[in-house]
Each structure stands twice: as structure tokens, then as C-alpha cells.
């Protein structure tokens, strides 16, 4: 039987990710460009993922796009919501997953999964609090790299309370805490709990069942993961592939479509 290659493209609001899957089982190539829809990110991510394995679009049996900017790529075989793709990608990595929490650049999703399929979900409202953008804003105010937030939070000895209701107000709270001389690490700890509190509210609307898996770029922040664990009262699992889970799910759906097509 011929080898089947499928490509999943996840065009997010702040990053573009691609995954090439071999026979629906093995990731042979992945790429990430830290800019998303409306930029050169998607085309660069696609070129990178193909070039690294010396392949062309035509070598792909099926190409599926997902993410906020999925509709901007109109030449693909299909577009699907990032909700189903995150559910499928998480199920591939953790076959016993029941709850997926994905914190992306501008939205938060909590997805309920039964036997690998999404049965229900909740998303944040029109508000940046609790999203990756919230962390970007806070990192800028604190003059630290967003990638270092987790490591810095681990050095905290006490948590500073930060509001979870509004990015703008939370930003002024952080500024006022800095002015009062609070420790940066303690403020970051508070920021992570602020994000976690928003997510927990959404998660309880869907209902939380083990295993809980966190996906998306923010899953790389160990501070948010541990704050979420604490606030949720459930162990939260993540994977080094967290940021690629949407693209992986898209590639898995693409494989499913390609094999059905045959």
C-alpha cells in the first residue's frame, strides 16, 4: 500500500503552525512561524514544513487548514474549526483525554471529548483577559520575555492578587504593584492565577473530567499550567507538541479524509 502524507495547517492569531503526517501515525515534519493570519507567517510555515522533507504540496494526499485564519487559505482541500482539530490532536497524544484546554493568542477554549470526538465546548467572550495576549501585555509591562514567565513564577514566594476581569485594569494593577515594590516573580505568579481563574470559570461550564490536557502556545508556560492545576483541582497534562496540536489534529482529519476518499 502506498504511503499517505497529509498536511495540517493551523493559522492562529499570533502564530502559524504546520504538521506533515505519514500514514496518519508519524509526524515527519513540523514548522512554526511566530506570526499568524494576515502576515507572511502561513506561507512561510507551509514552505518550511515542505522544504524540510523535500516535498511539495502535490505530494500531500489531503491538506486541511484550521485556526482563526483558516478561511484565508482557500486552496486547501478542507477547512475545519480549531476546536475539532485540538480535540483530535490531543486524543492522538493522550488517548484517555476527556477535557482539552487550549489557550491561544486571542481565545480560550475548553473542549469536552468522548471517544476522541468533540461533544461540547466553551469559548471566551469578546475579552482578552485569560488569553495569550493578556500574558504578552503583562510581560511587556514587567520588562521580561514572555517565554521566561514560567521560570520566574517558579521563584515566587507569595502570590500577589491580580484582577481577572480586564486586561487593561490588570495592567494598571501590575504597574501599581511594581510601584509599591512588589517582587516581579510574585506578580507573575498572581498573573498566572488570574489567567487560570478565567479558564476555570469556562471549564466548569463544560464540566471537567480527567484526563485534562492543555494545548496551545500558553501550555509551554509551566506557571500557567501549575496555576491551572491548583485552581481546577485536577492534574493538567501537557506535551512538548502543545503548540502543534491544532495542526496535528488537522493532519489527522486530513488522513481520515484521504483514506476515505480512496
Amino acid at each position: 500500500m502506498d504511503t499517505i502524507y497529509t498536511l495540517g495547517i493551523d493559522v492562529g492569531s499570533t502564530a502559524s503552525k504546520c504538521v506533515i503526517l505519514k500514514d496518519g501515525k508519524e509526524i515527519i515534519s513540523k514548522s512554526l512561524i511566530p506570526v499568524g493570519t494576515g502576515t507572511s507567517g502561513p506561507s512561510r510555515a507551509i514552505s518550511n514544513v515542505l522544504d524540510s522533507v523535500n516535498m511539495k504540496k502535490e505530494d500531500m494526499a489531503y491538506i486541511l487548514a484550521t485556526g482563526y485564519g483558516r478561511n484565508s487559505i482557500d486552496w486547501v482541500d478542507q477547512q475545519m474549526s480549531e476546536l475539532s482539530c485540538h480535540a483530535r490532536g490531543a486524543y492522538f497524544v493522550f488517548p484517555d483525554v476527556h477535557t482539552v484546554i487550549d489557550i491561544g493568542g486571542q481565545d480560550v477554549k475548553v473542549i469536552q471529548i468522548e471517544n476522541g470526538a468533540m461533544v461540547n465546548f466553551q469559548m471566551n467572550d469578546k475579552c482578552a483577559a485569560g488569553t495569550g495576549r493578556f500574558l504578552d501585555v503583562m510581560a511587556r509591562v514587567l520588562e521580561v520575555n514572555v517565554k521566561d514567565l514560567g521560570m520566574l513564577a517558579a521563584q515566587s514566594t507569595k502570590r500577589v492578587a491580580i484582577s481577572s476581569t480586564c486586561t487593561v485594569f490588570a495592567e494598571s494593577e501590575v504597574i501599581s504593584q511594581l510601584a509599591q515594590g512588589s517582587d516581579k516573580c510574585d506578580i507573575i505568579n498572581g498573573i498566572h492565577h488570574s489567567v487560570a481563574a478565567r479558564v476555570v470559570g469556562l471549564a466548569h461550564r463544560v464540566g471537567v473530567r480527567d484526563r485534562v490536557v492543555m494545548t496551545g502556545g500558553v501550555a509551554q508556560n509551566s506557571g500557567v499550567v501549575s496555576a491551572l492545576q491548583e485552581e481546577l483541582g485536577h492534574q493538567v497534562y501537557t506535551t512538548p507538541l502543545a503548540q502543534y496540536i491544532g495542526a496535528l489534529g488537522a493532519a489527522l482529519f486530513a488522513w481520515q479524509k484521504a483514506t476515505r476518499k480512496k
Partner: protein
Amino acid sequence: MAEIEKTAPAAQPAAPAKKPKKPPTPGVAALRKVVSDVYAAAWEAKKAGRPVGWSSSKFPCEIAETLDLAVVYPENQAAGIAAQHDGERLCQAAEDMGYDADICGYARISLAYSAGVETTNVSRQMPQPDFVLCCNNICNCMTKWYENIARMHNIPLIMIDVPYNNTTHVDDTYVAYIRGQFDDAIKQLEHIAGKKFDEKKFEKVCGNANRTAKAWLKVCNYLQYQPSPMSGFDLFNHMADVVTARGKVQTAEAFELLATELEENVKEGKSTLPFPEKYRIMFEGIPCWPELRALFKPLKTNGLNVTAVVYAPAFGFVYDGLDDLCRAYCKAPNSVCIEQGVDWREGICRENKVDGVLVHYNRSCKPWSGYMPEMQRRFTEDLKVPCVAFDGDQADPRNFNDAQYETRVQGLVEAMEANKAAKEG
């Protein structure tokens, strides 16, 4: 200064011929005429020096109708203005007057109009009021909204206060309380109309209102057919009649005519839905009127028909006698407890066989949206269907995001597909 050169316009390629609009069916045309007549009658009254009233949508219309008073409905006006994309300008005008952006979009549009800001939607221009009729069974914002209009124009406000129902039945004390206000409203309106209240005519008007309500509910019930002979979005359009002209015999006749057309559709296997019905959903809440096209687009793409809406049948007030009328007006969506609200909705979902629920978190309507997370939890648990929410607004387009909405609808479709696959094993 050089004169601007006048040149003939360059030859333009012929624009593709527009697909001619399908003429409305006789039933739909009759319904449109009823609403146009309501607005025309108000202008006529104003010109003739007779008083014109502005009324909340669930004020018992039977009183003013009995006294031959011309009445128009700011909620219908605001929805029409918003649907014609003039709502944001009027909302902004109200905000410039000092009204907060968090206040209901209908109220902001209406307050701006009341203050003299004209609308570009000619069909929804209406004369300024000489009295206002307010019933707060639909929401509490209404009370302050109408107080403000009354104060702006220095005109009488006739108020019927409907208490919130903490139980699923309407207590007799509530009925007595409303009945007392009803009697007082009649006296005030007799004074405004300059004539005595005719009990015989009142009975006739109540007969018309009941006939309208029954015909309207019959129309709503056609959504139970699978596939449905109509698009659920049609109900949103037809609601204008049940809001503005419940007590008129022409409204009852128009709905009865529409019901016969739908019956024909069922027999012939036709539908007003312009695409095959793949999934059936409940749309919870008032539509985003300025974004009807955006709302409809992903539904069309994915074959989703709205076959259940609680907002539409909520205007079907059927009653027998005055006490029962008071009891009926107590049961508006925002004046009943959550148990009653869940019961209504789940009943419609079961009867109209829905596969999923799409909830509008309407920034304009806090009472309606506030209890939705708990309702969603119950729908999911009791009906075993996915239930998805999006943010929007009934009148202010600034509170709606196209891309967010599309993702949620696509997610709902994918969840319904997974649900269906799981049920089929």
C-alpha cells in the same frame, strides 16, 4: 484655479443582471401591509391632531386598541433601524447624550430618536409620542427607558408593573395587582382618548388578539415538521406583526393565510428555506438585527435550519377573560423563573427535534443572557445535544465579531456531527 475637466464617464462593462427578487407570497404581503398600516395610522393620527402613543411590545395592546388610539412600538422600530444598519449611528447619538454604552441597544436607538435624531430607514420613521405605555414584563430597563421618553416630551407615562415570577404558576395576588393597574390604565387612556371604554368592543379586540395569537402559534408550530416548510429566520421577520398589531383582525387573517401557505408547502414538500435542511437547531435569544446576513451565512453553508426559538411563540398570548389576560401577560421570557424558562425551551427543542443549540449572549439584554450559562448546562444534560454560545447584540453591531461567530457555528456543526455519529454507533 483650473476648472475641473468635465468628461464623459468611461464606458463601464455592463453589470451582471441582478436576480429579480421573488415576489412575496400573499400571506407575507398581507403581513407586511399590516405593519405598514400601523405606522401609516400613527402618522395620520398625528396629522389629524389625535394623540399617538409609544408602547412597549408586551403592554396589553387590547386597551389602546379598544379606545381607537394610534400606537407604535419602539422595539419594532429599533429592530428595523438596526436591521437597516442605522442602529450604530443612533446608539452613538444616545451615548453622546450621556447614555451609557452598556444600556440596551433598542433603548439607546429609541432615546436618540425620541430626542429628535431621525433615521434613514423611512419605513420605521414614526411620529413623536403624546403618551407612552410601559409594561416591564419584558425587561426592567424598559421602565427607565420610558420614564426618560416621558420626561423628554413631558407626556403621561402609563405603567403596568408585572412582578417577577419565582414560581412556575402565577399567584392570584399577582393577578389582582395587575388587574388594579389595568383598571387604572383604562381610566388614564379614556382621558387621553377623550372617550369611554366600550366593554363590548374590548371583548371583540380580545377575540382578535386571541385569534392572532392562535394563528401565530400555529405558524410557529410548522417548524416541527421534518424537514420544515419554512426557515426559522422567517419567524423573526413575521414577529413585527405580532408585536405591533396583535389586536387587529387583519393580523389574525394574515397569519391564518400564512398558515395555509405553510400547509401547502408541507403537502408539496416545499420550504422557504433556501437550502436543504441538514441539521436543526434552536436559536436562543433575539437575533443580531444588523448582522442578519452574517448570522445566516454559516447556517446556510452548513445546512442549519433554526427550527426552535423561544422568543417568537413568547408573543402568543392566549387567554380567556380579563383575569386570564393579566395572567398571560405575567408570562414573558424575562419575567419567569429559570425552571419555567428551561421547561419552555426544552419543550420546543423536543417537539421541534433539534440537534443542537446556538445561544446568543446578547450584550443588550442582560437579564436574558445572564441566566444562559445555567440554561446551557441544563440543555446539554437534559437534551444530550451540543450547546454553543456567541457574543453579539440585538442592535449595536460593535458587540459582534464575524470570525468568532463563524468558528462557534463551525464548532457546533462538528460537535453535532460527532454526536450523530456516536448515536448511530
